[in-house]
Structure formats: C-alpha cells, structure tokens
C-alpha cells in the first residue's frame, strides 16, 4: 500500500514513482485507484456487452434468441451495465488520471476515494441482482408508474453517491495541486476537459438524487404517487447531462491520445477551452429533447431548451470536431508529412490501436452520433423518430462508437503506463478498434435505418404474432434488423477482443520495467509533454481538416433537410 495514514493536520505522506515514459510523478495511491476503477469498468463492459449480444440476437428476426421475459430483463441489464457502470467507472479512472497524475500531485484522501469505489461497486452489484431476480425489468430509465423492486433503485442511489464521493476527491486533488504548486500556470487542456465533466457530474448526480430517492420511497410505499411527466423531466436532467459527462470525458481522451501518440497540441487553447465551457454552460438544460412528444409541455419550452441550450453545446462539439483533427494534422505536418491534402492522414499511425481507435471514435461520433442527435432533437422531426430504433441507433453512435471506442483506445496507453504491463496479443490489439468500430458503425446505421421505417425500440416481437389485430412492418425493416444482428455479432467480437487483450495484459502481461521503458519508449518525443502542458499550436495551413469538416457539414445540412421533407409527407396534425 502506498498511502500512509495521516496524522493531525499534516498532509498525507504520499509515495511516488517517476514515470519513465512521461517523467510525471505518479502517486501510487492514485495509480492503484485508477487500476481498480478501470478493471471493474471492464468487467461491467464484459457483462453488459454479453447482454447486448443477447439482445441483438433476439432482435434479429431470423434468430429471435431469448423468450420475451428474458429479453426485457437482458435489455434492462444491458443498458444499466454499459451506460452506467462501464462508462462511469472508467470516467472515475480518467478523473483521477487527469488530476493526480497529470498535475503531478498526490490524490486527496485516498480513503474517501476507496469509499466511493466500494459504494459504487456495491450499488452496481445490487442493481444487477435486482434485475437478474426478474422483478425489475423496467429498463434503465425506469419510467413511473411502472415499478421495480426497491433494491433496484437503492442500488442506483448507492452507485450515484459513490460517484459523487469520487468527484469530490477529484476536486480536492485540484485544490491540493494548486496549494502545493505542483504545476505552473493553468491546468492542461485534458484536465480542463475533465473538470468540465466533473462539474456536469455534480449537476447530474443531484438530479439523480432528486428523482431516485422519492422513487425509492414510492417503491416501499412511503409515497403514494409520482407524476410521470415530472419524473421524466427530472430523470432526464440526470440522464441527458450524464451523456454530456461522457462527451466531455471522451473529447478529453481524444486530446490526450492525440497529444501522447503524436505530440499534437490544440490549435488554440482558448478555442478548445471555450468549447468545453460551452458544455458546462448549456447542456444540462437540454434534457428537453427527450420530451418533445410528451403531453403538457409547451412548444416554446421545448424549442428554447433544445435550441438555445442544445445548439450552443452542439457548437462546442462542432468546435472540437475541427480542433482535434486540426491538431493532429498540424502535428503530422510539423513532422514533414506535408504532401497533398491527406498525406498526414495516410501516414498516421494506423497500426497503433490507441490512435486508430481514437480517430474512428472521432469520425463516427461526428457522422453517426452527432448528426443524428441534432436531427432527432429537432422539435417536430422527433415525431418521426421518438421511441423507434432510430433512438438506440443514434446513441450507439455517440456512447458506443464515440465514448466506448475512445475509452478502449486510451486503454492501450493506460495498460503500459499505469498497469506497467506490456500489451499482449499485439496483432489482436491492432485489429480490435477496426472490428469493434465496423460492428458498432453497422449497428448504429442499421438501427437508424429500421427506425426510419418505423420499427419500435425495446420490442420483442415485430411480427406481432400474439397481437389481437395484425400489422406488418415493411420487408426492408426486417432486413435492417437482420443486418443489425450481423453487425451486433461483429461488435461483440470486437468487444471480446478488447477484453482478451486487456485482461491478458493486465494479469499476465510482461512487466514493463524502467529499463524496458527506457529502451522502448511508448511515447514519441514531446508526446508526454504535450498532454501535461498547455500552449497553442499556432498558425498552420490545414487543408485536410478543412476538407473533412466541409464534407461533414454538407452531409449534416443535407440530412437535416431531408428529414423535414419526410416530415412534410406524413398526416397533417396540429
């Protein structure tokens, strides 16, 4: 154990090592917490991914694997295990990394951090037990008045409290770093992104407490009624803003990977920091786009919240969408890859899974998740898509192709740097981002396709064989769901490859000693310095990035207006 119990008001005497790759001073207590949070995250990804595969195989009409009851159970478990437990455990690891490690600081109160960890773990296990017992197949959104077993809500509450403790430790570490002067000037951009994520997390967890605690009391009979519309408004205050945590975190990861692998610096610090600030300022109240077709909420409120709030936060993402590839292009051009428009991209380290995963995440988050999200969040267009397969299609583009793939990518750096193990199965690791990326890109697209054809989400039987009256979706809808199944298998395979590489390396990988790290440095010259510092790249011509952004923008505008055209063709209603 690294930490030594502190006495009186003296600061904890932390133990440090100096990282041979980055030169950073690594608090061993922080390192241990990062490891454990990351390991538990990966375990939940494995469990949740397995449930995802079962769900995808059931929704593949020709396979239709699970019986109805098991399908709804598996879907609830899938949503909770991946979206809440995998993503948030990993984010806590990122918060500790971005504070203690990047700032050269000791972690504030490791004991509290462990308390947070155990609370989160206990909560996640309790919620899983509740779901597996079968009385809580309410989906992770748990809309009232449908009711789950009390310990389902209790599990979520414990998990949230644990996460809040972890966020507090993060802020405490920032304060210590400032007090003890472990860094000079401003915090690095990656830490700034993590701060954005953590600020939003406080808002998110508070909304979660406001809604889940009364719901828990209602489930044990102490409260008689919860208004279903009010529930959704507050629930999405948590549900939506937690997606904003994910975006802030994975954008920070993009910058970190670009910096570590290529030594890339943001084009201008001011712009990139400003874009993170937009997330904090605007996205929390954009929960309205989940409520666009609810009764009793006015159009004015919907438009105000989706556009004022959402579009300014979208602006933040659009800015990163130029700054991140721009930073990469600038770094590559600085290295001499200056031929033509795209030499910098062709000669990028595509064989390094940290880079390939990061770049695929960037592209798919923008093209699949981003565009579809803005379209889906337009007040009237939502009528065409609400609760159809379009919705999971959209968020598998954001939170799987975007967040999950980015987190997988940074794992390839975390394992050697923090676990101090060599990556095993190098070939498998090289292919992993491509297999997972292709699979997830496919499920995202085909789910959106099925949704455009009307197919309902969270639905066991789209042939309606037991329904009192008949209805048939078009044949192409079945084709879409079949293709979704095929690509679901592919993404599950990509997920399995990730698990095999990570578990293998962490537990059985060759130890990465200091001599070894010196002999085969992981990061190129300037890589580590670029993450742990701040400063802009400055003026450079970036024709490649401008071309990519232009293609993106044209696709966005065309797709946006095509959907208004679709809308104009359905029955008039007012």
């Amino acid at each position, binding site marked *: 154990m690294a930490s030594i119990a502190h006495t009186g008001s003296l600061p904890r005497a932390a133990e440090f090592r100096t990282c041979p790759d980055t030169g950073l001073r690594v608090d061993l207590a922080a390192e241990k917490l990062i490891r454990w949070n990351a390991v538990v995250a990966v375990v939940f990804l494995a469990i949740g991914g397995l449930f995802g595969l079962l769900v995808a195989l059931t929704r593949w009409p020709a396979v239709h694997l699970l019986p109805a009851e098991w399908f709804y159970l598996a879907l609830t478990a899938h949503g909770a295990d991946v979206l809440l437990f995998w993503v948030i455990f990993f984010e806590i690891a990122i918060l500790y990394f971005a504070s203690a490690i990047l700032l050269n600081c000791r972690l504030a109160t490791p004991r509290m951090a462990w308390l947070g960890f155990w609370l989160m773990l206990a909560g996640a296990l309790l919620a899983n037990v509740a779901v597996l017992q079968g009385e809580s197949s309410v989906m992770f959104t748990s809309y009232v008045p449908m009711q789950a077993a009390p310990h389902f809500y209790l599990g979520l509450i414990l998990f949230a409290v644990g996460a809040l403790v972890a966020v507090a430790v993060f802020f405490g570490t920032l304060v210590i770093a400032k007090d003890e002067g472990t860094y*000079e000037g401003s915090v690095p951009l990656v830490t700034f992104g993590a701060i954005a994520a953590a600020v939003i997390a406080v808002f998110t967890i508070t909304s979660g407490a406001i809604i889940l605690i009364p719901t828990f009391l209602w489930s044990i009979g102490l409260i008689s009624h919860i208004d279903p519309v009010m529930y959704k408004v507050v629930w999405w205050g948590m549900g939506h803003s937690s997606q904003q945590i994910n975006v802030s975190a994975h954008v920070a990861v993009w910058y970190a990977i670009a910096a570590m692998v290529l030594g890339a610096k943001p084009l201008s610090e001011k*712009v990139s920091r400003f874009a993170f600030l937009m997330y904090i300022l605007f996205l929390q109240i954009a929960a309205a786009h989940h409520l666009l077709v609810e009764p*009793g909420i006015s159009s004015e409120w919907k438009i105000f919240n989706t556009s004022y709030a959402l579009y300014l936060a979208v602006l933040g993402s659009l800015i990163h969408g130029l700054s991140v590839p721009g930073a990469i292009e600038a770094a590559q051009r600085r290295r001499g890859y200056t031929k033509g428009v795209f030499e910098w991209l062709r000669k990028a380290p595509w064989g390094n899974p940290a880079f390939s995963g990061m770049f695929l995440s960037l592209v798919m988050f923008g093209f699949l998740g981003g565009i579809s999200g803005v379209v889906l969040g337009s*007040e009237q267009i*939502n*009528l065409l898509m609400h609760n159809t397969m379009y919705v999971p299609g959209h968020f598998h583009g954001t939170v799987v192709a975007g967040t999950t793939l980015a987190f997988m990518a940074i794992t390839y750096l975390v394992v050697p740097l923090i676990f101090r193990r060599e990556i095993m199965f190098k070939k498998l690791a090289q292919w992993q981002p491509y297999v997972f990326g292709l699979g997830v890109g496919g499920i995202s697209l085909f789910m959106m396709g099925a949704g455009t054809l009307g197919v309902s989400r969270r639905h066991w039987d789209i042939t309606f064989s037991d329904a009192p009256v008949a*209805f048939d979706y078009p044949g192409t809808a079945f084709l879409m769901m079949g293709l979704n199944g095929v690509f679901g298998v592919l993404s599950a395979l990509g997920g399995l490859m990730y698990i095999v590489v990570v578990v293998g390396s962490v537990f059985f990988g060759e130890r990465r000693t200091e001599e070894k790290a010196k002999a085969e440095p992981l990061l190129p010259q300037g890589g580590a310095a670029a993450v742990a510092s701040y400063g802009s790249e400055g003026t450079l011509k970036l024709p490649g990035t401008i071309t990519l952004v232009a293609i993106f923008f044209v696709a966005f505008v065309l797709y946006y207006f095509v959907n208004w055209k679709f809308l104009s063709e359905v029955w008039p*209603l007012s």
Partner: protein
Amino acid sequence: MAIHPPEKRIWWNEPLEKSEVTWITIAFIWGLVMFFTMVFWHFTGEQNLSNEAYRIHPETFAERTEAMVDQYTVREEGETGLPVVRPPPGSDVYMLARLWEWWPILELEEGKDYRLHLSSMDWQHGFSLQPENINIQIHPGYELVLTLTPEGVGEYGVVCNEYCGIGHHQMVGKIHVVAAE
C-alpha cells in the same frame, strides 16, 4: 516536479486560428438556421404536435371513450372483438391505451379533420402510427388532444412503442382510413 514543466505561455491572449474562427461562425449561423426552422415550421408546417393537454382521471377518460364507442360502433374486428368506431368527421374521437391494447379501432374519413384524444389507463404507452411513422408519448393522467387529418385510404397500425411490461409487443391497434362520402 515534472521533468517537462508546462510551457509558460499566456494562452488567453493568443490570436485565434483563422480556420477556427470561420468554422465557429459558420457553426453558429447553422445553429440559428436550425432554431428558426423549428419556429418557422410552427407557422407554415402542417405537422406540429398540439400543445393542448389536460390532467384527467383515467376513469373519466374511459367514460368518454365508452360513450363514443356506444354511439358510433359499426362492427367488431380481431380475435378479441374490438369495436370499430366511425365517428362523424370533425368530431371528438378517443383512443385509450391500457395493458395491453389500444381501444377501440377507429374508422376515419380521408381528408377530414378529427380531434383525437389520447390517454393511458395505467402505465406509459407509445402511440406509433404505422407506416406513417408518427410517434407520440401517452401518459396516465394526461389527456392529449390533437387535430389529425388522415391521408391515404387504407389500414394503419398503432404499435405501442413505449415499453409497458411483458405484453408490450402484443399491444397493436388499428385505424382504418376510408374514402370520404
């Protein structure tokens, strides 16, 4: 201390990258365009979700629906003998959602306006009119009233697309659209 101390540059005073400024401007204008498109559609578009909604007791809603069914039923349909109701154009028509059916079946005339009332008796349900692909959330205790103009003679399915328990996938209703008389 770090081997690589941070570069001490004053980042907030640096000039902005030109390509970034251009892109921020374009993206900001695009946000305004998207904002005004939604507003504009409220004035010129024909598909806007009604803002008319009331709090209502499920029993009250059921009584009103039953009154309509008693008055205008023309036949029965389906394995469970769902009433098919043909109210006059321009009138108030009701469809209620409950575990696990849409009740009753409606028969509407093409091109005529109807005031459609929707509510749930129990949990949340999703009114998903197919193959039109119009999707509206239905809550217990809230009555949504919208004016609907059916287009295109034929049979339309009403799928439930909000998960509502183990019978969710059996919850299908119907709307017939017939030629105007």
